């Protein structure tokens, strides 16, 4: 997957721990951990809404798209 989740970066900026965030967004620690480690396959808008409210950020602050680099054999 080429979507990078920068949840830990935002949490560090807001000086918030995973436990605090899980209480604020009403998500279990395991689910937040799945999101933080980039293992999540999908995120509900309601969850995204809750996280953005808790961290006072935009959705774009949490996600980053990285184009997979293609190898050029000739160069």
């Amino acid at each position: 997957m080429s979507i990078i989740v920068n949840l830990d970066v935002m949490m560090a900026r807001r000086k918030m721990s995973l436990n605090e965030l899980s209480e604020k967004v009403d998500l279990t620690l395991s689910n937040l951990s799945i999101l933080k480690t980039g293992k999540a396959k999908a995120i509900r808008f309601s969850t995204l809404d809750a996280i953005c409210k808790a961290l006072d950020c935009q959705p774009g602050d949490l996600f980053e798209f990285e184009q997979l680099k293609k190898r050029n054999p000739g160069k």
Partner: protein
Amino acid sequence: MEIKVETKQILKVLHIISWIIFVGLCIEAGSFIYNAISTYFMNPRNASYFQLSNLYEYDSGYFYIEILLMTIVGVLKAILFYIIVKFLQDKKLNFMQPFTVYMKRFIFTLTYLGLGIGLFCVWGAKYREWFMQQEVKMPDVQTLNIGGADVWLFMGITLFIIAQIFKRGIEIQSENELTV
């Protein structure tokens, strides 16, 4: 709650029935093997136990091939019920999350066994028909334990379709589990 108790009771009854059928099938498969060995090593007249004495007199090789087909069908049936007994014994049927790799493997195994039994039954039945055309008196397919080939093939094909649906169900379930 009541529904759950009923399901458990049904599963217990099915478990006991599966055990009984499994033991019966083991005895049946064992009887074919014993008959083949005793006919070869002890007394050729033992071929009459499954009414195959005419076939033995016609050609002993064909007799052993027919017994082999009967044995394979018997053994495959025993393995099928062993897998069912093991499945019910392990109690890995989880109604909260039914789409597991274990379930998929179980259904696929039943599929292949069902298809295998059906194909060997067809082969045995066709072989028997050919002997009848050679004017060899043969017992019916039920006596030879190679009857119901169409039923086994139908079960195998139906289970194959269900297994494909299960495979997709596992993908959807795992995606759902990883949706936050």
